[in-house]
């Protein structure tokens, strides 16, 4: 390391490494990962979401999982919670759908209504 610029560069690279621990997320994406969800392909969906977020360098989104909510036939289920907006639950989210949800809902704030299973106020 020879200069301040070098230090800055290393810092930026390293920040990606610890982002999960320090970020203050605004938006939450929750993937249903009960046995039913996993059987329906929720793991692939989850990986697609993470991959798409990484590709687009979106940093203020936390991705977590949840268990079975009893709507097994609609799995994989994905919830999107944006601050000040109702919780949107998408159904039968394939990896392709997941990528589109990120493009449309996360980035452009456009809910994709045809895949919405439910909308829940006040969460």
């Amino acid at each position, binding site marked *: *390391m*020879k*200069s*301040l610029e*070098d*230090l800055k560069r*290393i*810092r930026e*690279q*390293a*920040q990606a*490494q*610890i982002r*999960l*621990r*320090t*970020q203050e*997320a605004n938006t939450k994406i*929750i*993937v249903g*990962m*009960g*046995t039913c969800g*996993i059987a329906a392909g929720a793991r692939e969906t*989850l*990986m697609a979401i*993470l*991959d798409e977020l*990484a590709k687009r360098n979106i940093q203020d989104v*936390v*991705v*977590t*999982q*949840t*268990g079975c909510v009893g709507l097994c036939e609609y799995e994989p289920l994905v919830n999107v919670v944006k601050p000040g907006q109702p919780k949107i639950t998408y159904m039968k989210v394939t990896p392709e759908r997941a990528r589109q949800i990120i493009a449309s809902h996360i980035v452009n704030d456009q809910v994709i209504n045809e895949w919405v299973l439910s909308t829940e106020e006040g969460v």
Partner: protein
Amino acid sequence: MAIVRANVLICAGSACVSSRAYEFKESLLKALEEAGIREEVNVVDTGCVGTCDLGPVAIVYPDGVFYVRLKPEDAKTIVNEHLLKGRIVNRLLYQQAMTKEVFPSLSEIDFVAKQKRIVLRNMGIINPESIEEYIAREGYQALAKALTMDPEEVIDTVKRSGLRGRGGAGFPTGLKWELTRKAKGNPKYVICNGDEGDPGAFMDRSILEGDPHSVIEGMMIAGYAVGASKGFFYVRAEYPLAIKRLEIALEQARNYGLIGENILGTGFSFDIELRRGSGAFVCGEETALIASIEGRRGEPRPRPPYPANKGLWDKPTVINNVETLANIAPIILNGAEWFSSIGTEKSKGTKVFALAGKVNNTGLIEVPFGTSLREIVFEVGGGIPGGKKFKAAQTGGPSGGCIPAEYLDLPLDYESLKQIGAIVGSGGLIIMDEDTCMVDVARFFLEFTQSESCGKCPPCRVGTRKMLDILERIINGEGEEGDIERLIELGNEIKQDSLCGLGQTAPNPVLSTIRFFRDEYEAHIKEKRCPAKSCRALIAYQVIPDKCKGCGICARVCPVGAAQGKPREIHFIDKDLCIKCGDCFAKCPFGAIEKVDILLVKT
């Protein structure tokens, strides 16, 4: 590249390591492998989270879920439930001791929520063995900033921040730097005093283990400010993990060119060496420490001249404590005003305390100066176990004094503690409840300083021995009229006539317990009675006949056959055989054994 979707941070401080944190880590890695998600989850060692009593602990991000008292077999559950299905494992969460409330995330638990973490800012977030993660958290940015300032400007910032030495005496750090900068002589040196020796204090060890780069950075800024190009870490060899992490950190910093010649192209050069101390308490005294680094016997010498003028190899030397140096980088980055807005009028910033003794959450805490003992014990510390009454707290270890219950609301800082005969000291904070005998506490600390006295000056060498003899007599029920006065007289003389801080403060625990708990001393001496029922020579165990069910457990646990009786008949304890180990008292399921004053049972 695999996408990491979760980080599991495992506390790798000494306390968690000794409660098998690494075994948990092994089985976690195995479980991740079996579940096929090894690539998606980053498992990282981190510095002491502070909740040493709850160890081993782990934090799972992004949710920040805090798991406690982990056993290797819990790893599989966490992987299968939390990491695979997103279900938090409730039984492994932290539970508040008094209210039984369960908290999922680290930031919410009472122990952490009430703290203000400046020195401990990276604990539980970064891996202490990774310089990159330290850099990600603004690491070495303060050094970079300082190197663009004039050294005088750096000193001025530290002076205005109000930072005072965290090793015990509370000398203003900026002033110390200024004196060293102005002193004539070359080269100049920086020493980091990591010879932490107070019983019950472990903040310096934890900082070195958990965030070694923060101390290195502080030392380098000190070096730049005073005009030194060489620094020494003096860490006791009893801290192997701290030494290992420090060595790794020094190596990494050297590889990155952050230690060495022409740092960051600014022309400033600085090198650091690590010296191990062999654990003599007196080597925490600065002149003894310097003698030890020079290869001489660790004995203090008279001051002045102070190290600022005549230190290591007679050259101007600034010597700062570990915690003091860990405060430097945030002060340079955030400014003097930010730092001086925290704390009280004359004591700025925060203090790390090692909370121990009769309190529910023992461990490492950092609170602003001015926080009351009540907040520390009952909010951060979660109260006293078993609903017992708070009696006193010992601050400053063997050099300090006790704070009795009537001062629970006193805002803690350098001045307020000094006023009541205690000191902030290095930050050991031992909580005592109604079962603690204050005479015995005084004896414990004096026994420590007496055996650690280097022997150079007679007041300390002989005087502490004499005081200890008197205390032992009192505890054994052989105290005499006038003992208290003798202790006070001896104590004051030792304080006045000793050369260094060890002797000058050794009588403090005795004098301070006499000041606040003189009645306990008197009870021992005049009535041959220990009010806390703790001193063995002054108590006896006996069976309460009404409560005894004759279960025979006392007879079984008694190592000397003193507890006797036939099955299903009332038992008794043979006073002549009893060695007062207290096993029967602890094990009796019916509370049928009591401690009584020995005078009551003597016939």
